């Protein structure tokens, strides 16, 4: 049965798009059929992070308005063949994303894929509410930082009230994905610890993604980090998070970057 998953956060810049790409790729690498759907009309970026920006011909709004069918709009990843992208429109009016149109597209995608992953835009406006509307489960991307935690809490409230599942009186599973985590800083007491964030938001933990250059490098070259550098700490963390989504119950560990000799001798930096 298909699962519709929304990747959301409220606050911008915390790593929703990066995490959508990495989780989508990791699930596809596990053999699942996955489509990642960009809901950020006017500010699409999932295509860029996936390295598919030059292959976009039709987008979700073209499909909603009947100018193209889903097959024409879906872009198949060149590296992992069970991974697809449905791009957002870059130029059109946001209102073109209609409730009915989105409902129809999600229903059709459900038929064809194991996972439909919706990348929410930042904020709590229409795009964000539409991205979460049809979700079965939610991944809340949070940085260990006060403004991000506060916005995540707000989004959790919306997931529990404004989604189809909530309106049917059903429980929506929500998981925390803690990104840009700096173990050394948390240990020094200068950054909220994982337990603090979990305690405050009271949702289960899906994974901890360490702050890492590998994440930036991956988006620079347009390849999800789980494909670009599978042995890196963030890639392993995403891969484990994906396995947890598939039902694996392994414990969450704090992934640490390996220190090189220089880092070991002079401390601090590598974390």
């Amino acid at each position: 049965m298909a699962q519709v998953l929304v990747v959301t956060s409220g606050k911008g810049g915390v790593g929703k798009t990066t995490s959508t790409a990495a989780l989508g790729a990791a699930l596809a690498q596990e053999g699942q059929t996955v489509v990642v759907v960009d809901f950020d009309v006017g500010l699409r970026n999932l295509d860029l992070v996936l390295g598919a920006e030059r292959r976009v011909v039709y987008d979700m709004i073209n499909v909603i308005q009947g100018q193209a069918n889903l097959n024409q709009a879906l872009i198949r990843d060149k590296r992992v063949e069970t991974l697809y992208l449905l791009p957002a429109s870059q130029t059109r009016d946001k209102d073109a994303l209609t409730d009915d149109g989105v409902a129809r597209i999600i229903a059709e995608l459900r038929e064809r894929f194991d996972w439909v992953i919706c990348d929410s835009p930042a904020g709590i406006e229409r795009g964000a509410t539409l991205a979460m509307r049809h979700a079965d489960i939610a991944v809340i991307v949070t940085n260990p930082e006060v403004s991000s935690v506060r916005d995540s809490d707000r989004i959790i409230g919306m997931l529990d009230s404004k989604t189809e599942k909530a309106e049917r009186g059903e429980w929506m599973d929500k998981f925390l994905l803690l990104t840009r985590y700096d173990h050394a800083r948390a240990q020094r007491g200068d950054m909220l610890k994982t337990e603090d964030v979990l305690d405050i938001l009271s949702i289960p933990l899906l994974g901890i993604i360490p702050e890492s250059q590998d994440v930036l490098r991956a988006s620079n070259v347009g390849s999800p980090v789980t494909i670009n550098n599978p042995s890196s700490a963030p890639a392993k963390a995403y891969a484990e998070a994906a396995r947890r989504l598939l039902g694996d119950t392994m414990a969450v560990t704090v992934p640490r970057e390996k220190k090189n000799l220089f880092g070991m001798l002079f401390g601090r930096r590598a974390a």
Partner: protein
Amino acid sequence: MNPFRFFGARANSAPQARERLQLLLSHERALDGRSDLVVILREEILKVIAKHVSIDRDKVRVRMGKHDTLSTLEVDLEIRAPTSSLTALAS
């Protein structure tokens, strides 16, 4: 400037972040109509105490703590001095 800061005697900021967030979110959740255990407890405990002594509502802290095997509820409040002694101090 505090010269001791230079030697790293700075208090950690994460506990402050945690406390500020807990306080803020318990209020915001209540505004959203989400029931928050700490808020409910706070109101009910205050009601009982206010029956008997005068308290300053701004100086009440209710915190839930989670540890490995137990949870704690911490209530920290200031009881107002009787009015007579307050006027005595002011004069």
